């Protein structure tokens, strides 16, 4: 059941009606059942993994509460890490490490034939394992008290708006919301929530799905495409993945708002970033914060020497790349971003807090364009089917390859980019994702109409799954 499906259009209102008729405890029970139905609609067999992860993290939390002995606490905490990373490692990385590892060893003259299990990837596994681990991390570090309610914890892990593609929740912020009574949203909040859902559908259907065939065409047959077509392909992918993922996050946040739960922002106008450092403060914020708090800072962050900071940055970004997918291309994508971050720290004097400064067209446009192009270079590795494919793609652009250029693709990219830049610019200026709902009613109605018409036009085509469902 995806957010842009008719099933979800029936499922959400039904859950909302029942939800607000119930008191808190049954509300959580309803949310849990609804979340398992939502997840089971993808593949019910993987519900067992969700239950294992949930029960492990809950039990670890309770056990951590009962002891102060540091060594024992460490061992208990390690159980959570082993179970979550074990599930993730087996289902997501087993075949990658056996196939790529075997190839690597073969280069060294060691020939092995480990089994390739062709394991199905459970939807959202990277999200809910990180979600649960944030809880055990926080309990282990004594940042939060463990919850005594399995029901509340299970709802926190499985909460359907964020279960399969985030934002990755933080126990510190979210768990208390499931433990207290919720007040039904007032009309202004409902309006904001509905707007977020509408905007999310627009981004997914009218931007991401609309650009998908052009991206597939450029990356599917790069040797026949001109360098202009290839550039259009990668720029289109930049907007496709942004529309796809931020659209999902908007719908998730809007749906959660209607349930009286506030989810963290996951995107903050990332293509207005003036540096790659700033990009990571604005792109997939819940993942970058997770990696910062549970990996980069424990590794030492920027508290050591310059060299250690660079190492920590590179390690964090490489692991961030690997989190996205079991493929060398994702590792290179993460590595490239790591290199960009290191280079910015080493060779520029951009202050760390520069991202808080208001964006200015005259002053920041050039840096924004350069940052966008750097991000796009990395996107080529993210989207290409293989490392060689990505290198050929970039090489064909660099050699100004002759070939076909799809003029529809150029025009549609221009329209999509204009729409996304407009929406982001308004949000950036207002520092509010739902800024439009405060506009003059006439303009607001016009805006709603302009979002709905493209949704009507671009819905009902070949279904394009949300990109981040693969991760």
């Amino acid at each position: 059941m995806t957010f842009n499906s008719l099933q979800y259009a029936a499922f959400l209102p039904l859950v909302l009606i029942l939800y607000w008729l119930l008191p808190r405890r049954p509300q959580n029970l309803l949310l849990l059942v609804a979340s398992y139905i939502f997840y089971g609609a993808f593949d019910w067999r993987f519900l067992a993994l969700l239950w294992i992860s949930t029960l492990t993290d809950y039990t670890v939390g309770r056990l951590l509460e009962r002891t102060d002995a540091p060594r024992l606490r460490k061992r208990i905490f390690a159980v959570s890490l082993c179970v979550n990373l074990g599930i993730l490692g087996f289902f997501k990385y087993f075949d990658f490490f056996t196939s790529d590892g075997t190839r690597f060893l073969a280069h060294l003259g060691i020939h092995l034939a480990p089994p390739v299990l062709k394991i199905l990837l459970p939807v959202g596994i990277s999200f809910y394992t990180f979600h649960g681990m944030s809880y055990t991390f926080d309990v282990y570090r004594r940042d939060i008290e463990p919850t005594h309610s399995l029901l509340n914890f299970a709802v926190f892990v499985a909460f359907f708006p964020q279960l399969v593609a985030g934002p990755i929740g933080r126990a510190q912020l979210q768990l208390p919301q499931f433990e207290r009574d919720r007040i039904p949203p007032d009309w202004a909040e409902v309006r904001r929530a509905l707007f977020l859902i509408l905007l999310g559908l627009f981004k997914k259907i009218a931007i991401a799905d609309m650009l998908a065939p052009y991206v597939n065409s450029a990356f599917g047959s790069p040797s026949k495409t001109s360098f202009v077509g290839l550039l259009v392909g990668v720029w289109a992918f930049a907007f496709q993945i942004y529309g796809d993922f931020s659209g999902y996050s908007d719908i998730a946040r809007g749906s959660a708002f209607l349930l009286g739960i506030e989810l963290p922002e996951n995107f903050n106008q990332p293509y207005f970033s003036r540096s790659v450092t700033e990009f990571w403060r604005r792109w997939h914020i819940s993942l970058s914060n997770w990696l910062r708090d549970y990996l980069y800072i424990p590794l030492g962050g920027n508290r050591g020497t310059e060299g250690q900071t660079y190492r920590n940055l590179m390690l964090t970004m490489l692991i961030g790349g690997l989190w996205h997918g079991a493929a060398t291309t994702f590792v290179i994508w993460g590595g490239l971003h790591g290199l960009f971050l290191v280079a910015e720290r080493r060779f520029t004097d951009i202050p760390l807090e520069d991202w808080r400064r208001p964006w200015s067209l005259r002053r920041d446009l050039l840096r924004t364009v350069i940052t966008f192009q750097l991000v796009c270079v990395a996107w080529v590795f993210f989207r290409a089917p293989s490392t060689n494919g990505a290198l050929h793609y970039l090489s064909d652009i660099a050699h100004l390859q002759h070939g076909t250029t799809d003029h529809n693709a150029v025009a549609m990219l221009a329209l999509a980019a204009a729409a996304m830049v407009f929406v982001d610019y308004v949000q950036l200026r207002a520092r509010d994702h739902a800024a439009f709902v405060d506009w003059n009613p006439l303009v607001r109605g016009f805006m709603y109409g302009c979002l709905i018409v493209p949704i009507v036009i671009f819905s009902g085509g070949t279904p394009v799954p949300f990109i981040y469902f693969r991760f």
Partner: protein
Amino acid sequence: MGVPVLVTLIVLLVAELAVRAVHSHLPVPSAWPSPELQKKYDQIESRVSSHQSTDVVLVGDSMMDAAGDPGALNADGVNQSIYNASIAGETLPTIAQWTMKVVVPRLHPKVVVIGLSSNELNPASLDPATGIAAYDASRAARAASGTGSVVDNADAFLRKWSYLYRYRNSLRHPFGQPATGVFNPTLTATGRDLAFADKQYLQYNTPAQARQVVVGVIDALAGFTVGPKNVAILQGLMTSLHSQGIQVLFVVMPVTADLVSFHPGGAPDYQKAVAAFISIAQHSDARIAIPGIWPTTQFADPVHLNQAGTTEFSQYLAPLLRGAS
């Protein structure tokens, strides 16, 4: 709430009117598995809404699609309203479902002429991946057949009343429609497919050469045998029509000697098919016509009649239909 909702509705109305204003310049939208099915469904709906009676319906695959010319039949003295509801590229299960669930309930013909050839009796023609599966998966087909879900029927309703919704496929490519490679023939107002009318026959010495032109039919002859399932579907179709009081005329479509030779067992295979057709017609109380093998000058390729062939076919069919009336 009032003003924004009102303005939103006005924007939607303006978009709807804009599409209505330019729709004649847009490609015909296709909610059906093929553009031809869409066009024929639209023609049938148009006949129904304008209360145009239809006495005779021609059904079959691309052979009847190209050969059945209602205008020529009328000129040859068939004084009845005729519509060609044949569908190119489709196989027996789809033809049967389309005929019984869509065509007959809407047009209420007195006579149905079924035109098929040996390829439709071979089990190889029943590959669900290429035929009935796509038809069954089509929301429009399900809604039109009366087997649609609430969503299918809502989709059909929106397609009927909103041009913005109906033409959205075309609107997705405002700067030029992509080439789809899908067979999209020009039809006459009475449903005849004109794709083969102006073509002259070229010699095809091998199935491989012919396959380049009529891939579906030649492939459907692979390992030829008379399939019991095919026989059952055809017999079911003819019996159902007969039980509704509709006269059935079955035509074993005229073919080239080349097509006969493309059967793995040659002429004996083709004769087996003809014998099966005769048997099916007898069991269903249907009349049968067997024009046989015609010269290649009448054909656009090993399978489809060209204009000369269509004229000849109309002259062949007209007396049989005059008899039916």
